């Protein structure tokens, strides 16, 4: 029993981390239809700059704040210089965002050095407590809470406002949405920046979770995020959350019970979902 619960908590925490990264991609890829391979680059920049600020000031919160600010700024730069000229063309998006991803990744090595960096959570989030026979690790619970907060914030925002509809309409017909009085360029830019900030935030939270950061982790994790967005049903937060938790939980349980297959878990899961429910778990319609 205690094994089951701690596996579940592990899985949920991993799933939430994946969700935070996928949430940004839900906006950028799911809604705006941009194949943004540079998403992982925003993730590592969030991680490195956040950790740097955290170590400099000894304040974890300042680290998170730095990551978000860097995410917003890089999002602004990425949208204006890299993505804006290629809206609507997947082929060009792949090439230019992959190129930018490589630049972001290598610049990390230039600025922060090529070696891995070790990180640990702040003292007030470190440690664990025991209920019955079950050990709860504080930082994991913290991540689960943050993930839920972000989820409900965005879920509510999109349910109550027209933002989601406007973005989707803007992708379909840019001229028409402008003729309805909406500054679609500004909307796209802001949505992209928010997506980038989410990526950076998840990078920072992930850094303290895994305890070590390295430049290549961006691409690895962004592939996971793409998987989650697709099996979640493209562009909806509920789908992304469930898909991310599913990926996290399956990973945790497979790693414990069927370690031989754990490497294949994500791909297997995606293949199964796509074959049996090709529109994704929670299609928009």
């Amino acid at each position, binding site marked *: 029993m205690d094994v089951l619960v701690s596996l579940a908590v592990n899985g949920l925490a991993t799933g939430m981390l994946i969700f935070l990264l996928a949430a940004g991609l839900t906006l950028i890829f799911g809604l705006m239809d941009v194949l943004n391979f540079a998403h992982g680059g925003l993730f590592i920049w969030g991680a490195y700059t956040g950790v740097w600020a955290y170590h400099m000031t000894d304040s974890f919160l300042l680290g998170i704040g730095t990551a978000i600010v860097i995410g917003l700024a890089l999002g602004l730069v990425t949208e204006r210089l890299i993505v804006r000229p290629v809206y609507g063309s997947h082929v060009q998006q*792949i*090439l*230019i965002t*992959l190129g930018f991803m490589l630049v972001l990744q290598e610049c990390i090595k230039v600025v922060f050095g090529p070696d891995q960096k070790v990180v640990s959570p702040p003292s007030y989030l470190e440690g664990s407590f025991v209920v019955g026979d079950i050990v709860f690790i504080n930082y994991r619970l913290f991540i689960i809470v943050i993930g839920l907060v972000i989820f409900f914030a965005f879920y509510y925002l999109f349910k109550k406002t027209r933002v989601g509809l406007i973005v989707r309409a803007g992708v379909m017909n840019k001229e028409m949405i402008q003729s309805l009085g909406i500054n679609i360029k500004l909307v796209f830019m802001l949505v992209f920046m928010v997506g980038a900030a989410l990526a950076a935030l998840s990078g920072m939270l992930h850094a303290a979770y895994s305890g070590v950061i390295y430049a290549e982790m961006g691409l690895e994790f962004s592939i996971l995020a793409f998987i989650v967005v697709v099996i979640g049903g493209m562009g909806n937060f509920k789908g992304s959350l469930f898909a991310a938790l599913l990926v996290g939980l399956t990973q945790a349980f497979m790693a414990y019970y069927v370690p031989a297959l754990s490497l294949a878990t994500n791909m297997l899961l*995606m293949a199964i979902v796509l074959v049996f429910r*090709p529109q994704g778990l929670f299609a928009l319609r």
Partner: protein
Amino acid sequence: MNLRTIEKSTWVYLAIAFLLFVVPFLVTGRSIQFLIIQIFVFGIFAMSYDLLLGYTGIISFGHVMFFGVGAYSTAVLFDRFEPTIFTFGLAILVSAIIAGVVSFIVGILTLRLKSHFYAMLTLALAGLFLVGAEKWRKVTGGSDGFTFGLPDMLRDSFTLYMLSALSLVLLFFGLRRMTKSPFGKVLVAIRENESRTESLGYQVLHYKVIVSVVSGVVASYSGVLYILSLRFVDTSVFATDLTIDVLLMTIIGGVGTLIGPIIGASLIEFAHHWLSDLSDVHWLFERWIILYGTIFILIVVFFPKGIVGTLADRYIRWRARRTE
């Protein structure tokens, strides 16, 4: 055959093809010949990708699985059987069948849906092939890989060069023929406007599945050639990096041109070769990947349709202005 009906461009391509066969008599260095063989191999691989992306508008993130299937089938057969020409033929056949069946199934399952699904399912399957190759140690040797013997004929770098060059040339003309045929016209129609093509009465799904199969089989053949030149196989033939490479080759060269991907393959192979050597010259070049990434960005800015596509556009506009 009436020679006058042959297009001018065909003569140009034939002349270039002829030059390819002369090169090994002039350039005899083994390492440079090896580099050129790699270009041919990846040229074929990238052409197969262009059929999907350029001619039909299908994005795949797991094209490497067909390449890997070709590579492993060949290596395993040469490892298990006598290294003869017959085994070589068998290897081509087996890899074509496996690639054909896999691409057929993937196509049937996902090509009805929006393009993301084909991309993602191929990504998933390629990942599973990679894990499979790592875990099925008895046959694949796991991540350590294994070396294998080749028939005497294929051991020679000159023969291998000729074989790859001939394959590239024949496949280029064959695929070019296909894309210029009525069948190819339907593919382009699908890329431009799928629902309109459907409403004109074409079974869009059939066409897409056929392309997916042809592309998979050609890709598996490039894997066969690749592994012949290496005489060693490991799990890197299933690595996502290769899919990314082939994607870049196709896009940089110019999608939907067939010749573009070959040019893209040459550029990327040369870039890998030279740029990574630069790190010996100056420490700054250790970060040569920054340069590499910047080049991609600049290509999208200055050659939005790839090198061949954009140059062709400019040429057409220049001719139009001259005749005005």
